[in-house]
């Protein structure tokens, strides 16, 4: 088995997949802690469906680089959802559900009607569940992913204290002069970027798993924001790395293997947490 692994690692596309997978998992887990605590766990799911819809439209329009359409549309929806979350006429969860299923239906409809491909259900399936597209990344896509991930990580570190303040108590932050609206906007944009990137890795149906599982697992074990964030990043990176390796060795789909690994770790963390009293109340 080890020799097969080493053989695989000699291919550049396998190394690309590992790099991209680990970076995306890292970014998703960093933001995940905030999104879970802000009660926006489902936003990943909603936005990924929007990205799916946008991808279908890009396909219909025959765009050469579909990122140009997917990215702005998803960012726009993220801003709408996160910013209006507090005082909109349609409340956060309902708004997410509405946009999410709407985009999903529209995307599927467009793909069915206008697609030139002979294997529509295969296309849809791979967009939804990630399939093997991560193994067919070009060097440019890897670079794009690399640059964006590094930007996300740097932004997160620089704004870590502000993100904490805004997440813990938005009205207090606002009252004492923190520009919480601007930081919410930033969180929304970063979330959208991560989701679009993560679509390649796990597909649009499974993205929310990358966002919520590591954060929830870490919260079983740790009790300060900093340790939860670090632990969640470590869990996410580990699961993504071994998930990809495992999927190649035993021939399972990449996305669902990573998510399954995340789920298993969550189970383990729950047990450890219950035994050590990591979480009381």
């Amino acid at each position, binding site marked *: 088995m080890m020799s097969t692994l080493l053989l695989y690692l000699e291919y550049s596309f396998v190394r690309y997949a590992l790099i991209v997978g680990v970076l995306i998992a890292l970014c998703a887990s960093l933001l995940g802690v905030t999104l879970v*605590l*802000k*009660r926006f766990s489902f936003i990943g799911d909603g936005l990924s469906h929007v990205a799916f819809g946008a991808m279908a439209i890009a396909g219909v329009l025959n765009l050469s680089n579909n990122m140009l359409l997917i990215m702005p549309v998803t960012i726009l929806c993220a801003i709408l959802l996160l910013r209006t979350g507090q005082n909109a006429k349609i409340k956060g969860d309902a708004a997410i559900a509405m946009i999410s299923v709407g985009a999903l239906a529209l995307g599927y409809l467009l793909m069915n009607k206008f697609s030139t491909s002979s294997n529509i259900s295969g296309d849809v399936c791979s967009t939804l569940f990630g399939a093997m597209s991560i193994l067919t990344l070009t060097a440019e896509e890897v670079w794009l992913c690399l640059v964006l991930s590094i930007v996300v990580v740097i932004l997160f*570190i*620089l*704004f*870590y*204290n*502000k993100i*904490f*303040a805004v*997440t*813990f*108590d938005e*009205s*207090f*932050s*606002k*009252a*004492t*002069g*923190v520009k919480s609206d601007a930081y919410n906007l930033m969180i929304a944009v970063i979330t959208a970027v991560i989701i679009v990137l993560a679509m390649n890795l796990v597909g649009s149906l499974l993205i929310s798993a990358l966002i919520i599982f590591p954060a929830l697992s870490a*919260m079983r074990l*740790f*009790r*300060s*924001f*900093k340790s*939860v964030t670090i632990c969640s990043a470590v869990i996410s990176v580990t699961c993504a790395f071994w998930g990809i390796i495992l999927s190649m060795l035993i021939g399972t789909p990449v996305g669902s293997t990573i998510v399954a690994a995340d789920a298993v770790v969550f189970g383990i963390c729950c047990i450890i947490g219950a035994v050590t009293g990591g979480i*009381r*109340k």
Partner: protein
Amino acid sequence: MALLTVQNLSLGYDSQTLLKNLSFSVNAGDYLCIVGENGSGKTTLMKTLLHLQKPISGEILTGDGLKTNEIGYLPQQTVVQKDFPASVREIVLSGCQGRCGLRPFYNKAEKALAQKNMERMDIVPLANRCYRELSGGQQQRVLLARALCAAERILLLDEPVSGLDPKVTAEMYSLISKLNKDGITIIMISHDISTAVRYATHILHIGASVFFGTRDEYMNSDIGKFFLTQQELGGAI
């Protein structure tokens, strides 16, 4: 000049006006209690004072060199905070965030300030504990310490004792009055009129009829007498 002057303020949300033509002022060292029935607009008034919400008309002026965002705030607890994984130190430090501007990390002075305020609130032993594991009274102390990090001169407290048992409530009240004696101006929202008249120097009663004046004036006014006897009959909360 007064720290905070409110002139002809009308407030409410959407198109609904809750209060009209409200005027009062708060001087340094005052202990103002805002009382009124549920739905009379106490929380809306507080949000407007904090500039979280725009007034329908009227002005809120700050004086004596107080900046608008130098008002410390003790909010009511939100659902999000109930299971938030954060240590006491992280939360108290986050009170300094308003001072940071765009600077990404806290500096030494801010860390020292957080330490000082934790000492003041007697929560240093809890510094590394998780917020969600603390008792209600301890959580309020943490949030008070955070508010003190944000502002040293004036604090707005929104129902600081709601959900606390009688013993902790008494401790909380004496802690607040100690802060007031140290020179911090207090504005407190409360629905407990009998305690309000015990500690406050000034009372603002809002609702169908509005009263603003010192505690003694309030106790001798018709509206004050009416509500005090009514609350005694109903059993003070």
